[in-house]
């Protein structure tokens, strides 16, 4: 068995139909447990007070905003190299999900930044690269809508995705590149001194799992919709020719 079997729309539809209910159930379970635990049953931080509860939304959303773009990059490269339509449609399906995560990260970051830094926004390297990533998501979605031929749209958006990856990487590593700005380093680290305390860490990891599962569920569902939409277009074209 090869992974490329799933590039066949029929095989993808069969497998995703089986996987979707499980992914949805796991998403609801992880998000409910993680968010309820984080919101109701964790203490305030000694420095940040109750605002530490924003970590359960901000960190997973920011992680997934970057990872969604990486997934779109991989899918776009598969389309560009191997011309598998399902991968191009999966990249298209993931973009609105990634944009939503980016918006959540920006909004919760501003709401967290105001009481902690005394400002809603700063032209900090990480914040700025995140804003540019958000604009790339919008441009990517707009480009898909603007080009009528789906293969040409997939080619052009694939190139845009490669260019935008620079900002996805910058969003992740800007804090390390430029040792300046307001944003602190990573909340999760292998280094025990850098890592957040266990009392916050466990619900945070469950929330991250929940956001990953939410992404998988929505991308599977939206890719199925895109495959159906492409079949509608093909059948309508055949009707017009008949």
């Amino acid at each position, binding site marked *: 068995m090869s992974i490329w079997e799933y590039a066949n729309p029929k095989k993808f539809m069969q497998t995703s139909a089986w996987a979707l209910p499980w992914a949805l159930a796991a998403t609801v379970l992880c998000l409910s447990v993680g968010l309820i635990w984080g*919101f*109701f049953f964790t203490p*305030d931080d000694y420095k940040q*007070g*109750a*605002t530490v*509860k*924003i970590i359960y*939304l*901000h960190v997973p*959303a920011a992680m997934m905003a970057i990872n969604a773009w990486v997934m779109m990059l991989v899918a776009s490269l598969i389309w560009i190299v191997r011309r598998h339509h399902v991968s191009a449609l999966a990249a298209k399906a993931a973009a*609105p*999900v990634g944009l*939503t995560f980016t*918006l*959540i990260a920006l*909004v*919760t970051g501003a*709401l*967290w930044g*105001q*009481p902690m830094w005394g400002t809603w926004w700063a032209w900090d390297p990480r914040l700025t690269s995140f804003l540019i990533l958000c604009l790339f998501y919008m441009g990517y979605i707009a480009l898909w809508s603007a080009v009528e031929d789906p293969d040409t749209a997939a080619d052009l958006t694939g190139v845009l995705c490669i260019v935008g990856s620079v900002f996805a990487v910058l969003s992740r590593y800007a804090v390390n590149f430029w040792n300046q700005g307001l944003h602190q380093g990573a909340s999760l680290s292998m280094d025990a001194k850098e890592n957040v305390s266990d009392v916050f860490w466990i619900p945070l990891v469950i929330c991250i799992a929940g956001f990953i599962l*939410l992404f998988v569920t*929505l991308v599977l*569902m*939206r890719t*199925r*919709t895109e495959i*159906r*939409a492409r*079949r*509608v277009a093909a*059948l*309508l074209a*055949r*009707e017009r020719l*008949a």
Partner: protein
Amino acid sequence: MMPDLGKYAFAVLASYGATIVLIGALVALSFRQRARVKKTLDEVEARAAAQTGKNDG
């Protein structure tokens, strides 16, 4: 049951509220698109099947 958020109540509640609204909108939009496309596909496939039947007959 509600934790005491003190002076940070606005920041915390607005963060949770904005996240729920954004994810809720994305999920609702995804389900609406899914239902619309599925309905159109069923109609077009039924027409295609009827056309094939007519041609065969």
